[in-house]
């Protein structure tokens, strides 16, 4: 199997960054505020186009594709500030993502023939399965905007696999969680990787989560890659410590 390769370079926020996500791995992308991690994310998901360089998914360039095209090609993501469909039910939040793989929706929905009902049932079953995997099946009829914060995060995570992605990008999934929730989240991410056989690219500011979860970590500062390696290597890397805590003052 090919690795999933992402490569881009020569941007304002990112200077010639080379980044490679291998099949099935959990890669952490970290850096202090403004280091360029979110820009990297937006490039991969097609929100921005790279000024130079190339981004490839399983060997094929994805430059120029729109976000929804990338999504249907297997790149799923979550957002730093949770983005759900607030006025839809929990079930429908997952179901629309499942249904984005179906075709001929409009006329089918209007005519309501046999194919339509079969499709609806299949989507519902698949969505319900996902919800129960994430422990949300009991809230399936509530509106997404009415969920408590932790459940909203989980729903966002449940929606992503509905696309059957190869690569899942997680943008600060632990933001605003307490230590117990964070532990559960890490467990969940490992489980998703296992269950759906996908690679995870994780941007996270919460270091315990990143250190505990990732096999490999890439550290950015001012748009440049300053370190790469296992959590243990990265944690003692002097440049990383300096980027986060600042240099030891000379007169100290």
């Amino acid at each position, binding site marked *: 199997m090919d690795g999933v390769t992402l490569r881009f370079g020569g941007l304002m926020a990112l200077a010639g960054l080379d980044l490679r996500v291998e099949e099935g791995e959990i890669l952490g992308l970290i850096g202090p505020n403004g280091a360029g991690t979110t820009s990297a994310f937006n490039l991969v*998901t097609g*929100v921005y186009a790279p000024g130079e360089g190339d981004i490839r998914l399983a060997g094929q360039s994805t430059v120029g594709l*729109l*976000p*929804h095209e990338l*999504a*249907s090609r297997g790149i*799923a*993501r979550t*957002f730093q500030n949770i*983005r*759900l*469909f*607030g*006025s*839809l039910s929990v079930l*429908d*939040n997952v*179901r*629309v*993502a*499942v*249904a*984005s*793989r*179906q075709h001929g*929706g*409009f006329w*089918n*929905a*209007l005519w*309501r023939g046999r194919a*339509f*009902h079969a*499709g*609806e049932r299949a*989507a*519902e079953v698949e969505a319900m399965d996902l919800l129960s995997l994430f422990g949300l099946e009991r809230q399936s009829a509530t*509106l997404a*905007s*009415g969920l408590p914060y932790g459940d909203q995060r989980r729903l966002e995570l449940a*929606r992503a696999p*509905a*696309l059957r992605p190869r690569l899942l990008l997680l943008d600060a999934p632990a933001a605003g969680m307490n230590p117990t929730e964070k532990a559960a989240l890490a467990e969940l991410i490992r489980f998703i990787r296992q269950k759906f056989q996908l690679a995870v690219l994780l941007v996270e500011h919460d270091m315990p989560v990143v250190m505990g979860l990732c096999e490999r970590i890439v550290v950015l500062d001012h748009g440049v890659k300053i370190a790469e390696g296992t959590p243990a290597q990265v944690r003692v890397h002097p440049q990383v410590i300096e980027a986060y805590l600042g240099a030891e003052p000379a007169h100290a």
Partner: protein
Amino acid sequence: MSGAGGKRWLCAAVMAALALQWCAVRWDFNRYYLGVAVDAGINVILAVSLNLINGHTGQFSLGHAGFMAVGGYTAAKLTLVLGGGCPSWAQPALFLGGLLCGGMLAALVGLAVGLPTLRLRGDYLAIVTLGFGEIIRVVFQNSEFFGAATGLTGIPNWTHLGWTCGFAALTVYAILSVVDSTYGRGFPAVRDNEVAAAASGINPVRYKVSAFVVGAFFAGVAGGLYAHHKTVLNPTGFDFLKSIDIVVMVILGGMGRTAGVVAAAVLLTLLPELLRGFAEYRMILYALLIILLMLLRPQGLFNFGPSTRA
């Protein structure tokens, strides 16, 4: 609404509409009440179709009267040109054809409005759709073919209660069944969060343009019904105030709430009739209603469900 049940329900509603029409002729219902009922039916079609654009999909169109004008003029011109030598048994077919042609043409115009305005949102979109509506009106106003400023007259009075209620039922059915499906959840998904919708594999462009095309189609049909109800058409009837009227129905009913919008359309048709005694204050009250609604109940008067917006 379950699928097959929905279709059955639609058939029943159309039959009921035709039966009602038969009764109206048989027992000679009051002309005035019949007229008001037809107005209400047309407004239901307009409001429910605009609700797909403004309510479900969250775009803000202020040009619905323009689509209505396209449909109305097209249908009226067709029956005026072809209707002269038409035997009476063929009239319903001609009428139906005219309405559908009007709807199609309006849908085309909807496509022409929906595509270039994709990037716009909020008040910019509102202004541009208002502009499109006004351009359509000015074009009709200056086109000799459509009678210029005097408009079209002598349009046969074919729109009766059966047609109106039948098409109202069809509109409600079509919009409800599209929206009430997994495919149709894409409309509110695009409204709630366009970025997340795209990240979930939903093509926001397709949904936004479809909403305009489908909404415009039914507005065009409503225009045709309106033309054959009033028997005269002139461009001033399709100005920006008419668009605002329809928008107010949607807001009053609650954006994205079909039942509420139907109720609001009926209420807002009846209200001016009931207020006839206060004709001088009628429009002042109407304007006050808009302001108070926005200040006190922006989610709509008939929206009792849980808040749909976080």
